[in-house]
Every structure is written in structure tokens, then in C-alpha cells.
């Protein structure tokens, strides 16, 4: 049974799927445009120092944990 958890809680190296983005309109659209949409596969490469390095659809992003808490993922 997959769990739904904020991106910040995903262990390093594990792949998950984006379930939802709990953010305001602007930020949500922004994230979707960068490839964070429902169903996108996402891998956390690093999680430390208040920031994450994630890979979504083959693109690597660095993001603050504040933003990452708004992205809900399921660990499939």
C-alpha cells in the first residue's frame, strides 16, 4: 500500500509519483510548467540543509524545503 507523503519526507534515492500540489495558483502553475504534474515520476537525489535536489522527468531541480512540503507524493 503506497503512502502519500510530502516530498520532504521522501528518502533519498527513492522514486515516487506526484499526487498533488497544495500551493496557490501562481506557484502551482509554475511547478506544473516545470514538469511537476500529477503522475510525474520524481526522485529525490539529496535532501539536506533545508533544500532538496530532485529529478522530475529527467530534469534536475534544486528547491527549498518550504516549496517541497507543498508537493505531495506517493512512494510507489
Amino acid at each position: 500500500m503506497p503512502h502519500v507523503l510530502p516530498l520532504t519526507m521522501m528518502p533519498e534515492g527513492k522514486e515516487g509519483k506526484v499526487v498533488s500540489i497544495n500551493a496557490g495558483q501562481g506557484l502551482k502553475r509554475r511547478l506544473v510548467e516545470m514538469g511537476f504534474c500529477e503522475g510525474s515520476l520524481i526522485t529525490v537525489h539529496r535532501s539536506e540543509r533545508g533544500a532538496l535536489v530532485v529529478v522530475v522527468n529527467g530534469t534536475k531541480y534544486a528547491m527549498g524545503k518550504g516549496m517541497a512540503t507543498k508537493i505531495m507524493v506517493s512512494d510507489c
Partner: protein
Amino acid sequence: MEKKKITIALAGNPNVGKTTLFNAITGARQHVGNWPGVTVEKKTGKRTYKDTEIEVVDLPGTYSLTAYSIDEVVARDYVVEEKPDVVVQIVDATNLERNLYLTTQLMELGSRVVIALNMWDLAESRGDEIDTRKMEDFLEIPVVKTVANRAEGIDALLEEVVREADKGEHHEHEVSYGDDIEKKIIELEKIVGKDSALSGKYPVRWLSVKLLDGDENILEKIEGSSVATQVNSVLSTIKKEDYEAAMAEKRYETINTVLPQVCVKCIKGVTFSDMIDRAVTNKYLGIPIFLAMMWAAFEVTFTVATPLMEFVDMFFGWLAGVVAGSITNPVLGSLLGDGIVAGVGAVMIFLPNILLLFLMISLLEDSGYMARAAFVMDKLMYKIGLNGRSFIPLLMGFGCNVPAIMATRTIEDEKDRLVTILVNPFISCGARLPVYLMLAGAFFGRQAGSVIFGIYILGIIVAILSAKLIRGTVLKGKPSPFIMELPPYRLPTLKASAIHMWEKGSIYLKKAGTIILAGVVFVWLLSAIPAPGVDAAFASEEILGTEDSLIGVLGHIIEPLVAPLGFDWKVAVALVFGFIAKEIVIGSMGVLYGTGEDEDALAEILTAGAMNPLTALGLMVFTLLYVPCIACVGVVKKETGSWKWTLFMVAYGTTLAWIAAFLIYRIGTAIGWGL
């Protein structure tokens, strides 16, 4: 035969090699300006291909064409309103999915698009096989493979662009949004179509799609139109957030049906970039590696620059000699020799330093490391109320604050950007160094190095505290959430980096040729006009730069203002001139104390009683903090677009400088230090 003229626009995501492709197409024939009304850089260039003259417009790099940032609005308005003959979208072959998102939006806009499939060699070496023929079939858009940094595929691309421009017909590509949304689109199309002002200017379907998309910019356009109430009544029946996300996902769905057919296999796994990232973004290694890179960049800059600086110095020395020897008219000779050559020369001497620093920064940027540096520094920068992207502009400030402030354009959040601009002048630029060198050398002997280092550190501390202060008061709020792409590492090419270096460095040259030139002529005039009541000829030897010229009058007027800091009228005058360029402080003290270019003689006079270690230290700190040079003030005005913030920065810095110098002088005197 008359040449055909067409206009093409380059669009694309950030980091796909757009600028490199632009350079490869236009070569040296380019023009950099601003888009009207905003501080987004507009680059245009020309290229003649066969019998067609092509005007190339480089649009800002964007992930999409919504109205999220100024960049996107600028790019979109250009495509919609100026209707370029062809839009070339540069697509990163290693990242098709996200790049094609922009393609769907360009398609919806009804523009004629040609795709430049860039960096396909990288994709291929990774094992991705992209079937461009299939891609063309699915998208109904021509696709040309390019490798911009080796200028491959440029002719093929231009060939396709010209052919597409000749076609003249208008493609109407559509993304299908599914029954529910389509129904609303049709409903809106009917309403919007009634307003001829709107439908004449924009594609009606696109307007309707954007309205459902919750696009604020388009909503504003509708507000002022004849159909505003009708549109609003339709929009009030839907739940906006749901539509927005649903529509974005439909676009991705469209892409995802195309993608598996086009890209046979897209290999995942640990890449070379991942391995490097593991080291450079490591918790413990990240900052040391970053510091080592910066140290190396500065080291290379200064070692290589030193002989070049000597060369520039020799050149201007020679030029001054030629001028003095060949011009017999003493007034003209003095204007050219004492004014223009000496003044501009003093600035030009830093050119090698600044160009090299920018070359280093460009190399790091082009390799992809700078994005990691911003990431590594983000936590630190967040603590002082800035974000990771603020770091690069602050670093560049050590070279010259003018291009550094222009570099803040990469910061998306307006408040973050404003704070970064306002504190940037406290980062001690190269122009202030000669002032420290001379004064510290004269007064602190073997401690000179430590004193100068201390001044630099003081600048950094003031910048940090000011950022915190400004963030806590006039620009309340937290830095915007941080997200940035970490592009794959690429081997930078010297040519591309050299072009980037030149883009930044030429700003400095321009400043030397315009503002500083005008400034030194003005200073010379002031020092050449006799003071009222003095009986001497204009620019005569005995009044030039002495108390008997207008400069002396000016100095005595401001002397009371700086007297509490232990400065006399000569220092006051030198500081006024420092507004033109900080390095002039030393030059004009030379003139005022009658020692000219001879810095050793000046040091002797100063240590013999004209100043003491306390006033010297005060003067260094004052030079660090007070009003930045005129070019810097100009660029702050231009980038903030506000006199209010510009004056705030000037007043804040100058007040701070005064207080600091006052404290140094008074406290130092009270405890009898250094006397």
C-alpha cells in the same frame, strides 16, 4: 535584386542553448537593448541567408507563455502582437517532455514554429534515439537538428526558416482539452469574438483558453473591453484552480502521447552530471568546493591581470606624454593630459581585471556550475534575507557593481531583487582598491594588507546587516521560495564564454567612454575656472586645482560637513569627485596636494601631518560606504525604475559612511589610538 526581409523570434526554456544559438546565427551583428517599459534585456541581430535578410529577436528564456513573470509576458506579447514571420523554438533534446510544453503553447498561439532540436548529440550519446521525422509528423512542425556550441545545423535551420516564412499560410494547431473544457472554450469564443478590438489582435481560441487558464494578464485585457461582464459570468460558473491544473495536464497528455513514438528509449540512471553533483552539492564538501572555485577564479584573475594592467598603465603614460609633447596650447594640453587621459586612464587600468573576472564567471556559468553555487549558498543567503541567486551579483560586485547590479535580472522575485541591488554597492569594487592601497600603504606599513582585508570584510558585513535591516523594515517578507533548474554539466567553449564576458564587460567600457569622460572634463573645468575675486587666467598654471579655483570654493563650502570626521577641504573635494569614479579620490588628492601622479610624494605629505592613521582609516571606510559612483547610481535607477529607491540607497550609504567615519575618528581620538 531587392532582398527579402523577414523577422524571426527565438524562443525556448532557460538553459537550452538559446543565447549560444543566437550568437551562432548572428555572429557579431547584434544589438542589446531593453524591451519597452521593462528591465528585461532585448537582443536583436541580423543575418543574411542567401537572398533573405533575417532579423533575429532573442526572446527571454521561459518555461511557458503564461503571465507568471515579466519574461513570459514580454515573450508572449512579442509573439502575439508583433507577429514575427517564424518563431524558432530551441528544444533541448535531452529533455523533450518539458521543452515540448512550450511548443504546445506556441502552437496554440497560431505562430509558425520551427523547432531547433539542440544538443541532440548529447541526447544521442546518452542513448536517446529521437525520430525527428515522426516528430515532424505528429507536431506538424519542421524539426532541425542543431548543436549550437559547435555551430552545427545553422544553415539547415535557416533554410527551413526561410521556407516556412515563404509559405505564408497560417497553421492552426490545437491542443484538445476534452469535452467539458472544450464546451467552455466554445462558449467563450462566441463572446470574445464579438469584440472586434480583441479578436482582431489575438486568436480567439487562444484568448478563451487563456481565460479558463486564469491568466491574469488576459483577464486585465478583458476587463477593459465591451464583453467584460459576459466573460465574467461564464468564468464565475467554473472552479478556476481545477481548470488551470486540468488544462496544464492536458497539454502534458498531448506531449506524452507524442513522446513515446518520437523518443524510442530515454535512458534513466546515474549520469556523469549526477556524479559531479554528488560531490559539489554535498553537505560537507559543497561549501569548501565552492570557496575553492571562487578562490581559483580570483587567483587566475589577479595573476593574469597584473601584467596586462601594467601594459595599460604604460600605454596611458605614453599617451599622456604624446599629448603633452604635441599640443602647444596650454589650456587644451591640460584638458587632454591632466583631465581626459589621466582620468579615463585611471579607470581603464581596471579593464583587464574586470574582463578576466567576468570571463571566469562566464566559464563557471556556461559549465553549469553556477546553478550549483546558487544552491550551495541558498541556505546562507536565505538567513540574511536573500536567495541563492543573489549570490552571483554580490560576487560580481568585487569586480564592478554596475554589471553586478544588471546581473540581478535573473532574480525573479521583485523584493529579493531590490534588496540585492540596494546592498550591492557595499561590496567593495575594484575601483575602490587603489584608494585603500595608497592610504593603507602610507599609514599602516606592514599591517596594510590586513587593514585592506578588513575593509573588504566590513563591506560584506555592512551588506549582510543592511539586507537584514531592509528585509525587516521597508521590504518586509521572506525571500521567495527557491527553485532552480540544475542543468547538466557542459564543457564551456572559450568562444561562447568570451562573448558572454564581452556582454558584461563592455558595459564597463561604455561607462569609461561616456560618464567618466564627461565627469573628468567637468572636474577639470571646475579646477580651471578661477574663483570669484581671483585675478588669473582660465586654466592658468597657478590656479589649476588649487584653492583659487572653483574647486577650492566648493571644498570650503562642504568642509564643515566633513570636519567632524577630521577631513579638511581637500579631502572633501576629493570625495565629491569620487562620485564620478571612486578611483578619482586618490587622483584628485594628488592634484590638490600638488603632488600629481606621484603617489609616494602624496603619501609623504599625508603622513607628515595632513592626515593621521585615524583619519586615513576613516577615509577608507567612508570611501567604501558612501554614495556609489555615478555610473552605479545610474544603473540602480535604471534597474529599479524608481528615483525613490535610488535616493534611498544614496542617502542610506552616505549616512552610514558618515557615522562610521565619525565613530572611528572620535572613539579613536578619545582612547588615543594610532596617534
